[in-house]
């Protein structure tokens, strides 16, 4: 029997919005290149499998290695990547998990349960990217790959079986929702964005994601409008043409920082007459407001301001919070399922594999010994027959072994007995397998 190495385990070490404020998170934020470098260096330090998940809310490293990873060395490596000195007092902001807790944490992250904006969906893509990056850096092995793949599946399940990601998550989405309640199909909608700041950019992203037919951007500073338009493949128009552009739009989202109102009923009425009574949804996100309240008196104008948008976001947040228990149940169930499958792979899979390999070796050996006694034309047939026979004989005990493990009835002693009886030797668990090391 081979001597078995210390069992490998999943670990997590990182900083997130739950443990550190934004200024601290900013210190440890990693871009794609830095994350890949960190994964490679952590892999070299721990000798295990590593994935580094770096988003604006977190910089977390996931490890699969034998024994707890050396945190001081990891912190030193991370500080070197960021070009900073190690701060011994700053260690409190890092959180760690081990074993099933790590699995559960990752599944919660992938499901959007641990996001600052509850249920946001971008994290799913970020988890996928982190895995890809680690694979490219040669730091991710089969076990870590399976963990992240399962996390992505768990996240997908959370989103499809709960309403955690439904509703309005941002001002941009609120605009899309409000417009959708009037015009229905947003793919027919022409939108006009007035203002090119942060809110304008978020709104542009939400509008493009909703698939609006055409997006025009205008700003009091034409250059800013052009820059934003370039980012979202939109069309920039001069600010003086904003009113005329409104006549051709179905949705207007305004978020300028103008010190006073820009439009009112009297200034818009002549332009809107050209619309042939098509409804126009105006969402005024500016403070102070860009549209005077009397604009709403125009028959086909549906005016909403920041209060409406905030009410929608809050309403949606409450509904999403109510989904947390259901989402957690799914996460726990998936984490348990993963842990069981992982344990199964670790304990039983090597035994099964070795069993099948030994049986194949026996049959090959026997066939080789009797090969001369068989006519050449019958050899293939006999070989196939023997193979089928061996697999049939093995099927029931192997299946029973898997069933016992699934039921939790397979004790280590029983497994050791199986190894002993059939003289099966396995390689144990090598966290480096499939990483190319």
């Amino acid at each position, binding site marked *: 029997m081979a001597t078995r190495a210390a069992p490998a385990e999943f670990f997590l070490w990182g900083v997130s919005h739950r443990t550190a404020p934004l200024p601290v998170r900013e210190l440890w934020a990693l871009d794609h290149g830095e994350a890949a470098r960190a994964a490679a260096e952590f892999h070299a330090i721990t000798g295990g499998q590593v994935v580094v998940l770096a988003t604006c809310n977190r910089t977390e490293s996931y490890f699969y290695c034998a024994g707890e990873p050396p945190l001081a060395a990891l912190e030193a490596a991370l500080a070197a990547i960021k070009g900073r000195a190690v701060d011994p007092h700053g260690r409190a902001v890092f959180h760690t998990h081990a074993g099933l807790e790590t699995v559960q944490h990752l599944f919660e992250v992938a499901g959007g349960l641990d996001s600052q904006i509850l249920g946001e969906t971008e994290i799913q893509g970020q988890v996928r990217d982190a895995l890809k990056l680690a694979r490219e850096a040669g730091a991710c092995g089969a076990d870590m790959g399976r963990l992240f793949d399962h996390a992505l599946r768990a996240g997908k399940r959370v989103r499809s079986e709960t309403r955690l990601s439904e509703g309005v998550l941002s001002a941009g989405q609120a605009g899309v929702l409000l417009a959708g309640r009037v015009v*229905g199909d947003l793919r027919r909608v022409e939108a006009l964005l007035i203002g090119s700041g942060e809110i304008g950019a978020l709104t542009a992203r939400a509008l493009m994601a909703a698939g609006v037919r055409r997006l025009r951007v205008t700003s009091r500073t034409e250059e800013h409008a052009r820059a934003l338009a370039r980012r979202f493949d939109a069309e920039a128009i001069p600010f003086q043409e904003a009113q005329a552009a409104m006549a051709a739009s179905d949705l207007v989202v305004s978020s300028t920082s103008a010190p006073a109102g820009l439009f009112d009923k009297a200034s818009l009425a002549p332009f809107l007459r050209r619309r042939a*009574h098509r409804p126009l949804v105006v969402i005024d996100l500016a403070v102070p407001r860009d549209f005077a309240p009397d604009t709403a008196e125009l028959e086909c104008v549906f005016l909403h301001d920041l209060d409406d948008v905030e009410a929608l976001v809050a309403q949606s947040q409450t509904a999403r919070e109510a989904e947390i228990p259901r989402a957690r149940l799914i996460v726990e169930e998936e984490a348990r399922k993963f842990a069981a499958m992982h344990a199964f792979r670790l304990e039983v899979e090597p035994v099964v594999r070795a069993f099948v390999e030994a049986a194949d070796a026996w049959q090959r050996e026997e066939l080789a010994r009797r090969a001369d006694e068989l006519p050449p034309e019958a050899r293939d047939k006999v070989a196939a027959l023997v193979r089928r026979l061996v697999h049939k004989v093995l099927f029931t005990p192997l299946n029973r072994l898997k069933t016992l493990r699934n039921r939790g009835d397979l004790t280590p002693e029983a497994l050791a007995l199986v190894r002993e009886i059939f003289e099966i030797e396995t390689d144990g668990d090598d966290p480096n397998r499939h990483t190319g090391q």
Partner: protein
Amino acid sequence: MEQAARLLAGFLPAAYAIVWCLYAGLLAGDCSAAFKKTAFRALAALAALHFLALGCRAVALDRCPLIGGLELVSFLAFAITVIHLIVERLTGYQTPGIAALGLALVLQTIASSFWGYEHGADQRLRPWAVHLHAGLGIGGHAGFLTGATYALVYLTLYRQIKTRRLGRLWERLPPLETMQRMSVWALRLGLCSLTAAIAIGLARAWRDGLNPQPLWTSGVSWLLFGALLGIGRRLPLSGMRFAAAAACAALVDLVLLVFTEYLHGRHLGL
């Protein structure tokens, strides 16, 4: 057969109430796809059941079951249900069904509560052409009523959004433009149905040398809604004005329908 007709007539209001409750459920809460499908299937089953009830009555009385106000009211409820079923299928939106089916429920409850079997067999009302003419005629008026009901829902929704009351109702009903499209679909179906009914009526009057006087009022309804749909298309009306006009036109149509029924009754000497 008369027993079956009576039994079905007695059961119909309850069936309408059950389906209406399902549709109220759709409006009240976030429902699963299975629940939505169940509601739609229940509606289709209700339409089939009502058709069966009318069929039994037609066989029992050996005539078109459209004599007198109560038979007309029941047929109107049936036609509203069918029109909503078609519009729901075309647009994919179910929640406005609560208004259309609510109207049908009220109409059928009135019909089932009071109708009798005083008008017996009538040779003049046996031909299939009469069944078709009467059925399509009522179908036309039902289309107008359903379209007006959707228009009222549109007006409610318009007011909700305009006054920024973004509550539950606002969430569950279709978007404003879809609501208007549903109204237009129902009115178009009504217009097509009434056109066919008038054509059949004119053809029969011409062939049998009958007085086409009862068709005049239907003609006025036809012109009214034809003009509304034509104006709505050629000179774009705002959704709010179109909905208000459709609701007003439906009120006029109801009066014309009563008058048409009176003329038909006088024409047949009933």
